């Protein structure tokens, strides 16, 4: 029985996908989307890289705000793809992440679906009363963005960055769309 359990555990460990924190992992097969995308972003910053990055932030107000935001984080992971045409990714790619967000502690706080095929979700992980993780899934016909922030994060502090660092302020007609290069 013990041997069977070990084999099952080993099997799961082998098939479980690639990178990310301990609890949420972006599927390894997302890499192939970069080949089809006209623009893509791949950010993988674990705690040691976050510390390194923090050390290079300047004393200007925006950088100081970012330094404060990331000071206790364990990781930041972003995959973002922009395609020339629709149908370049499948919802099973997104489902592989959604299924992990059914784990204890995670809850979906916002889910927005539009008639244009845009589907945005925000998940938070709570440990007690503290937010311990944030996942954003933005699936649009020609764009797929996945963000995972692992560690204590305050979404309102993130909101304070709007209007700075290239983050659009929320006006009457909504935030402006920017290319990945402008971001």
């Amino acid at each position, binding site marked *: 029985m013990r041997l069977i359990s070990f084999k099952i555990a080993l099997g799961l460990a082998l098939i479980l996908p690639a990178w990310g924190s301990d609890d949420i992992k972006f599927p390894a097969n997302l890499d192939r989307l970069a080949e089809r995308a006209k623009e893509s*972003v791949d*950010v993988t*910053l674990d705690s040691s*890289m*976050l510390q*390194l*990055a*923090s*050390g*290079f*932030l300047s004393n200007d107000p925006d950088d100081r705000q*970012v330094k404060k*935001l*990331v000071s206790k984080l364990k990781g*930041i992971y*972003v995959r*973002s793809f922009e395609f020339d045409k629709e149908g370049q990714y499948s919802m099973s790619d997104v489902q592989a992440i959604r299924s992990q967000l059914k784990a204890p502690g995670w809850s979906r706080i*916002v889910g*927005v679906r*539009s008639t244009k095929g*845009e589907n*945005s979700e*925000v998940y938070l992980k709570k440990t007690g009363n503290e937010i311990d993780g*944030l996942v*954003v899934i*933005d699936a649009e016909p020609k764009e797929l*963005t996945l*963000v995972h*922030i692992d560690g204590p994060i305050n*979404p309102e502090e*993130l*909101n304070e*960055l*709007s209007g700075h*660092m*290239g*983050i*659009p302020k*929320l006006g*009457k*007609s*909504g*935030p402006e769309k*920017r290319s990945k290069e402008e*971001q």
Partner: protein
Amino acid sequence: MNRFEDELKRALTRRQPSEDFTARVLAAARRGEPEQKDRRNDRRAWLCWAFAVLAALLLVLSGDAVYQHRTRIVKGHEAKRQLLLAMRITGKELQQVRWHVRKISTPEIVAQ
């Protein structure tokens, strides 16, 4: 090497400058010349050079030390760039979600 050459090596052991020498050199470099504007503003290059000065003075100009320091500087700047990019993307995504929620909950905006 024979005995005499050993003595010569001992006689020509490396000497160290004054304790404040490094600080004076770095200060002089920071003052710089006007035509060096790009170099002055390139903090990364300046740090690498400053480290090389220190390493040369401390006689530890090992390839690994300089190379790894330069690598660390480059990695650090790249990590910072990625961090700021991640913050921008996350901020933008959350803004879009807020916008969608506002659209739904504020009819006058939906009407527009």
